[in-house]
């Protein structure tokens, strides 16, 4: 007599080494384990763009196409972090934090400290407190909260921007609309945009240009040379 697991298929007698199969193997009474269906979600690789399914609760995965390691959770940087970073969740760089790698990509980035590397925010980059970006940033939406200050030494390229605090940067490129709030202060060497609103009280200084390709086709008024001819 010996003990075996409930669902054993075959075993060997521990005394005489006789091999025998379980009488339940071919029977209909065999118990089957049923696994609950794991909820999954779609994941896009930050590097190659390949799409795959991962468990909703997964904290990391590897791209099936390019093999890149993908972190799916959130990350808080309170000291200095070296090396590249790619998150599908939220990245927070604290007031004393510094991202020292070449590039950090996340769905959402909350910047309160410094970034020596390039930042890419798939959804938004929100600035709170005193923040600095050395290599520039890009993403869908740039949000600078009231009272926050962002100093960028390179270009910032976003689809839209909502600025309620202070921004100083070399080049600001906005595909869509820029909104500058009544307490905002923006100093840029060059700003390229499609549409812009500066509320009363807001400040904007620098050179600007509306993105030419987005100008609607319309009958053009006569140019300067024609003015001089008609006024003679």
């Amino acid at each position, binding site marked *: 007599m010996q003990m075996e697991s409930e669902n054993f298929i075959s075993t060997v007698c521990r005394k005489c080494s006789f091999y025998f199969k379980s009488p339940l193997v071919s029977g209909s009474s065999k118990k089957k384990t049923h696994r609950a269906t794991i909820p999954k979600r779609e994941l896009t690789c930050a590097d190659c763009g390949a799409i795959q399914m991962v468990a909703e609760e997964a904290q990391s995965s590897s791209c099936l196409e390019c093999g890149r390691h993908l972190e799916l959770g959130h990350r808080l940087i309170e000291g200095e972090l070296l090396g590249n970073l790619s998150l599908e969740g939220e990245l927070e760089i604290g007031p004393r934090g510094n991202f020292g790698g070449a590039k950090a990509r996340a769905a959402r980035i909350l910047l309160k400290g410094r970034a020596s590397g390039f930042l890419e925010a798939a959804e938004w980059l929100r600035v709170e407190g005193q923040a600095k970006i050395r290599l520039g940033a890009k993403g869908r939406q740039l949000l600078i909260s009231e009272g926050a200050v962002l100093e960028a030494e390179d270009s910032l390229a976003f689809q839209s921007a909502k600025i309620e605090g202070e921004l100083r940067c070399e080049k600001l490129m906005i595909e869509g*609309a820029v909104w*500058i709030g009544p307490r905002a*202060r923006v100093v840029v060497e060059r*700003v390229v*945009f*499609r*549409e*812009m*609103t*500066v*509320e*009363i*009280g*807001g*400040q*904007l*200084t*620098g*050179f*600007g*240009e*509306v993105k*030419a390709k*987005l*100008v*609607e086709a*319309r*009958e*053009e*008024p*006569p140019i*300067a040379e024609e*003015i*001089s001819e*008609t*006024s*003679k």
Partner: protein
Amino acid sequence: METEEPASGMGLQIAGSVGLDQDGVIRAVVKGDIRSTSKLVISRKSVVSGVVQARDIRLEGRVEGGVEATGQLWLVAGSVLRTRCVAKALQIDAGASFSGEFKVGG
């Protein structure tokens, strides 16, 4: 004077500066500056080669010399502004064209 009709000049071609002390609509080609102490509309097809100064400005046409508004400046779709943009508040619609220096607020 607010009940009076706004000043306008359909098809005018003006060589020289224009001064207005009431709300006005410019429908002309102006080779010179425009100064107003009130609201001003530079209508579509109007062209101003000089500087436009007014309290509030709505730009629908073209200004080559820049605008200076002590109040609000509105560039509607199809408008063209070059050189300089000074205002207390600013609205640039999609489809407007601007290239030059900004000084808004402050």
